[in-house]
């Protein structure tokens, strides 16, 4: 309890909000209320400053440059890799691969597994996945003759672990689950999923895109084989992300793209690939993005994930109870283990209509299927309105959302 109070005392949302210049802007004449954090988070000035500093002072191509700017940029880029390594508690820095984002990271693994899968092998994904998590595996299975199996979900929006147990066998080669569902916010029991997969000798890839804004994952403790995330959901810029892979797995996978940076020696007879991480980092990377990613991680850690999680839980509880007071409102995804995401609908009203009216009131929410059509099909709905809260949001903003939803309901009924 003492720790909790201490955490709360240090966490001053008014001060944190001052770090985000965008929160001062108006939308349609109203102060912006940004509740689309699960799609992308806003950027604090500390991260913006790093981006400006890079282009103002040391923009250069990295690695192998002999001049000062190139050396400075290389040092900062590699320093960012170390920050990410430390944050995720990876054993070694080369186990962290910079990518353009979670989707890119997933594609590196799925295309790499093409060489490792045989006809009849099985790949398990979950029913809670984002499209970007389903399509690459479908493509992989089409190419290799492997079979795609799906862990079903229940009414609360949780994965049916008993069913998962039944799907696992010696044929299972890879299991792929998100840490937190983007459509519903469910926190999946990944440690359990990973341990069970390892018992049958399967590798596990966890999509942490939605988890990293709320949780600090420890890849060694999880014993996960691959973990992927995007910078833009944790206060960093778009177009950059990471792939963590255990060294032995990354060595086993073939390179994803050919190009500069990823080679050791080249002749027309034979090319030898560079060591990790460069084997997977062909071409000039998003240098500034990588450095800003590192800064974003510093920023989040300075606030502290314990404080973030506890405050966001408070917002989630408050938002849930306030929204549920509206008659005819249904919340989808009611797992006890949930991140600060509320996916909901109003009886007989299309989510698009509510989203359009909320936008007129300056409130940014997401409407639609959230790239998770299988989840929407399960509930037999065209989509939902999704409000996702971040540590810079407030209860006052939730009050305005609730008022806005009531107004939209009145206008649309």
């Amino acid at each position: 309890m003492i720790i909790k109070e201490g955490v709360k005392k240090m966490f001053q949302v008014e001060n944190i909000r001052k770090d985000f210049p965008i929160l001062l802007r108006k939308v349609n004449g109203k102060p912006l209320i940004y509740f689309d954090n699960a799609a992308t988070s806003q950027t604090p000035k500390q991260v913006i400053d790093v981006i400006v500093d890079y282009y103002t002072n040391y923009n250069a191509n990295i690695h192998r440059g002999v001049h000062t700017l190139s050396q400075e940029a290389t040092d900062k880029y590699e320093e960012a890799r170390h920050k990410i390594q430390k944050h995720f508690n990876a054993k070694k820095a080369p186990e962290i691969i910079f990518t353009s984002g979670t989707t890119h990271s997933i594609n590196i693994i799925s295309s790499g597994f093409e060489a490792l899968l045989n006809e009849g092998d099985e790949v398990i994904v979950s029913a809670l996945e984002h499209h970007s998590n389903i399509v690459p595996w479908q493509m992989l299975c089409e190419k290799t003759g492997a079979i795609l199996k799906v862990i079903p979900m229940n009414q609360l929006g949780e994965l049916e672990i008993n069913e998962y147990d039944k799907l696992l066998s010696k044929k299972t080669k890879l299991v792929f689950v998100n840490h937190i569902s983007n459509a519903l916010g469910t926190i999946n029991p990944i440690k359990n999923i990973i341990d069970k997969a390892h018992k049958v000798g399967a590798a596990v890839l966890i999509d942490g895109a939605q988890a990293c804004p709320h949780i600090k994952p420890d890849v060694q403790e999880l014993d996960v084989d691959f973990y992927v995330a995007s910078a833009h959901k944790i206060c960093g810029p778009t177009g950059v992300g990471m792939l963590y892979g255990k060294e032995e797995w990354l060595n086993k996978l073939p390179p994803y793209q050919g190009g500069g940076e990823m080679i050791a020696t080249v002749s027309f007879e034979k090319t030898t690939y560079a060591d990790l991480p460069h084997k997977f980092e062909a071409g000039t990377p998003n240098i500034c993005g990588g450095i800003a990613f590192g800064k974003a991680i510093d920023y989040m850690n300075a606030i502290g994930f314990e404080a973030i999680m506890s405050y966001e839980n408070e917002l989630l509880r408050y938002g849930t109870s306030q929204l549920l007071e509206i008659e005819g409102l249904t919340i989808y995804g009611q797992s006890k283990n949930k991140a600060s995401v509320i996916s909901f609908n109003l009886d007989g009203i299309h989510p698009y209509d509510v989203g359009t009216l909320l936008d007129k009131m300056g409130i940014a929410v997401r409407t639609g299927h959230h790239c998770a059509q299988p989840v929407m099909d399960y509930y037999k709905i065209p989509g939902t309105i999704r409000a996702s809260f971040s540590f810079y949001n407030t209860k006052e903003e939730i009050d305005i959302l609730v008022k806005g939803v009531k107004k939209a309901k009145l206008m649309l009924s």
Partner: protein
Amino acid sequence: MQTIKAVQEEIIDEFSMFEDWEERYQYMIDLGKSLPLIEEQYKKEDNIIKGCQSRVWVHAEMNEGKVVFTADSDAIITKGIIAILIRVFSNQTPKSIIEAEMHFIDQIGLKEHLSPTRANGLVSMIKQLKMYAIAYQTQLN
């Protein structure tokens, strides 16, 4: 029958009476509710307009040289928008539909207040209505 231009002027006039977005949207919502529904048989996959977040079905028929549109959507604001478009385009000759300039959309504050994805929905709707007109015009030629 009024020309497409005259109908547009009439709509701009009506919208100019509204003082704020609420009145404007309430009007569109009410229009959506009054839209003559498309017959169930035409609510099929082939008649769905792509590029809209909500589902929109449009059906066209020729009646004495004029194109008659009916439509429906599962979202009421979308339905309101398409009700306005139908008011502009329906019961006009294919030629006048093809040649029509759509100046009213900006003037009634529809496009500027709709985000790109939604605006694409609006653009897709107009494109689809014009496509029907082009198809009928080809038959006439």
